[in-house]
C-alpha cells in the first residue's frame, strides 16, 4: 500500500492533527470549555440549588444546617463562610459581603460577564484590526500613513490608565456617537473601552503581514485577472491571514479579560448591579483577613481562564505555523523594534 503523502491532506487538517498531538494544549482547551459550561450553568444552579439570584441580599436571614442555625451575616458584618453542600448547596462558597449575597451564584454570573466582555471585545478588536490592517497594507500611501500613525500613538499609551480614564468618564456620562447610545451602567462601555485600546496590538502585526502578502505573485495574478481591490483583499489576502487571526483572537480574549478585571477591580469597568470577577475581587478585598476566599476564588477563576486561553493560543500557533520562532514575544506586542521610532 502506498503511504499517504502529507500534501494530500488539507493544511487545516494537518494543523488540527498537530494541535491534537499537543496534550498540554488539548487539556487547556478542555479546561476552557469546562469554565464556559460552568458559567452557562449559572441559572440552573441559581434556580435549583442555591434558590437565589446574584443580586438578592440575605442580610438578616438565618440558615438551617442540620440542627444548627447559622446567621448569613453576623452582627459584626462578617458574611458566612463556604457551606459546601451542608445547606443543600445554599451559600456553597459563603456570602459575599454584609449584603449576604450567595458567592457561588455571583461567581457563575460574574463569570458570564467576564467571558462575555472578553469574547465580544476580542471579536470587535479582531474585526477592526482586520479592516485597518487590510486598508493600510493594501492601499499604502496616505491611508497607511494615517492608520499607522494613529496605531503608533495608541500603542505607545499606558493602556490601563487610558482605559480607566475613558471607563470612568463614560460611566458617569454615558456615550453617544451617532446612532450608538450607551447609558453609564451598560456593560457595552467596558467592551467599547477595551476594544479601542487593544486594536493596535493586533492591527500592527496584521498590517505587516498584508504589506508582505501584497508583494506575492498570487496577488499580482488576481489583479491581472481583473480582480478589484475588495476581491483581492477579501478573496486573496484575508485567507492567508487566517492562522494569524485565529491565534491572535485566542490570546486577545485572555488579554481582554485581564484588562476587564483590572478596570472592574478599580471601579472603572463593569458597574453595579452587574458584576464580574474583577469587581468581585474588589468587594472581597475588604474582607481579606476574615474571608480570604472571597478575593482569591474570583482571582483564581481569572487565572484559570486566562492561562487556558494562553496555552491554547500558544498551541494553535505551533500547530498552524510550525516555523514560527517568536511566540510569546509577539503576544506581548513587543517584538519589532522598528515600531519604536515614531
Amino acid at each position, binding site marked *: 500500500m502506498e503511504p499517504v503523502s502529507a500534501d494530500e491532506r488539507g493544511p487545516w487538517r494537518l494543523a488540527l492533527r498537530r494541535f491534537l498531538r499537543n496534550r498540554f494544549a488539548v487539556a487547556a482547551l478542555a479546561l476552557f470549555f469546562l469554565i464556559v459550561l460552568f458559567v452557562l450553568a449559572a441559572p440552573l444552579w441559581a434556580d435549583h440549588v442555591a434558590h437565589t439570584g446574584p443580586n438578592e441580599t440575605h442580610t438578616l436571614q438565618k440558615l438551617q444546617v442540620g440542627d444548627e442555625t447559622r446567621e448569613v451575616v453576623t452582627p459584626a458584618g462578617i458574611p458566612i463562610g463556604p457551606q459546601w453542600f451542608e445547606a443543600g448547596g445554599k451559600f456553597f462558597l459563603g456570602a459575599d459581603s454584609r449584603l449576604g449575597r450567595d458567592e457561588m451564584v455571583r461567581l457563575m454570573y460574574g463569570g458570564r460577564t467576564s467571558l462575555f466582555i472578553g469574547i465580544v471585545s476580542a471579536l470587535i478588536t479582531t474585526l477592526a484590526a482586520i479592516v485597518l490592517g487590510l486598508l493600510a497594507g493594501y492601499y499604502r500611501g496616505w491611508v497607511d500613513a494615517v492608520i499607522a500613525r494613529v496605531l503608533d500613538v495608541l500603542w*505607545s*499609551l499606558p493602556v490601563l490608565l487610558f482605559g480607566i480614564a*475613558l471607563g470612568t468618564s463614560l460611566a458617569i456620562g454615558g456615550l453617544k456617537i451617532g446612532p450608538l447610545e450607551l447609558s453609564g451602567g451598560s456593560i457595552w462601555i467596558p467592551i467599547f473601552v477595551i476594544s479601542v485600546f487593544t486594536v493596535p496590538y493586533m492591527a500592527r502585526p496584521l498590517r505587516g503581514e498584508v504589506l508582505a502578502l501584497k508583494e506575492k505573485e498570487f496577488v499580482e495574478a488576481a489583479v491581472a485577472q481583473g480582480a478589484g481591490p475588495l476581491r483581492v483583499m477579501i478573496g486573496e489576502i484575508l485567507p492567508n491571514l487566517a492562522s494569524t487571526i485565529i491565534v491572535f483572537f485566542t490570546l486577545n480574549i485572555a488579554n481582554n479579560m485581564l484588562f476587564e478585571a483590572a478596570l472592574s477591580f478599580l*471601579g472603572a469597568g463593569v458597574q453595579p448591579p452587574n458584576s464580574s470577577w474583577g469587581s468581585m*475581587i474588589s468587594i472581597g478585598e475588604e474582607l481579606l483577613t476574615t474571608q480570604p476566599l472571597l478575593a482569591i476564588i474570583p*482571582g483564581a477563576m481569572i487565572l484559570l481562564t486566562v492561562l487556558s486561553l494562553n496555552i491554547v493560543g500558544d498551541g494553535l500557533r505551533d500547530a498552524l505555523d510550525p516555523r514560527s520562532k517568536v511566540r510569546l514575544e509577539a503576544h506581548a506586542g513587543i517584538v519589532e523594534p522598528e515600531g519604536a521610532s515614531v
Partner: protein
Amino acid sequence: MARFIVRRMAGMVIVLFAVSVLVFLVFNVIPNSNPAERLAGKNATPVLVKSIEEEWGFDKSLPEQYVTMMKKVFNGELTSYSPRIPVDERIAEGVPATLSLSIGAGIIWLFFGLLLGYIAAVRAGGKLDKFLTGLSIAGISIPVFLIAPVLIYFLTYKLEIFPSGGYVPFSEEPWEWFTHLILPWVTVAILSIGFYSRVLRSSMLDVMNEEYVRTARAKGLSERQVMTRHVLRNSLVPIVTLFGLDFGATVAGTAIITESFFNIEGVGLYAAESISKLELPPIMGVTLYGAFFVVFVNALVDIAYAYLDPRVRLGAAAR
C-alpha cells in the same frame, strides 16, 4: 547621533500633542453629558457646576476648551471640587512611593530575569528551559489581583512575616521602607521574570550563531569571556527596549492596582480612590502626566537603543 536625538525629540513632541488631544477628547468630548457636571463630582450644587462651566469655558469652541484645559493642567490649577484639593500637590506627594515601588520591582525582575535567562541559554534544551517556558506563560496569565491577596493573606496575616500595607518614606526609616515594599515588589516583579528570561534566552541563542562569536572562540577566549563579553552584551539590546516599555506600563498601570491592594500612598492609590469617588479632575491629571511620562521614557529608550546599536541611528538618519 545628535541628528537622531533631534528627530526623535521632534517625534516625541508630536506624540505628546496627540496624547493631550486624546485626553481632552476622553474627558470633555466623548462622554454624553454636561462636562461641568462630570467634573464637579457627585452631589454637586448647581452653583458649583455653573462656576466650573465658566472656569473651563465650556460655552466656548472646542479648540479654546482644549487650550483652557492644558493651561489649567500645566499651571498646576487643576483641582478636585469636593472638597477643593489641588491635584498637582497630591500627585507630587505620591511620586516617591510610586517610583520606589516601580523602580524596586524593575530591578528585581531585571536581575532574576537576566540571571535565569543567561543560565537557560548556556544550558539550552535542559529542564530549566522547559521550566522557564512554563513560568513565562504563567507569568503573563497570573493577574496581580490574585498574587496580591494570596501574598497578603498568607505572609502578612497568617505568618506575620511582613508588615501590613502602607508606605514609609525612605528618608524617615530606610529599613521600614524596605520591609513594607518587599511584598509589593514581588507582586509586580514575579509577572515579568519568566518573560524576560525567555526573551534573553532566545536573543542569546540567536547571537550565538553570529560569526563574531565564532571569531571570538577561534582567537582562544575562554567560554565565560565569549558568553559575557560578546554574547550577553549584544543580547541585551532587545531587553533595553522591553524594559523601557514595561517600566512605563508599571508606573502608569500595574502600580495603580498594586498600590490599592497594599495601601501604598502613591499616585496609583490616589487615582484608584478618585475612581471610586467618581472624581474626574485627579484622573485627568494622573492620565495626562502618566501618559507624558510613558512617552518620555519611550523616547529615552529609543535614544539608548540607538546608542547601543549603530544600525538603528544610521538607518533612521538615512531614511
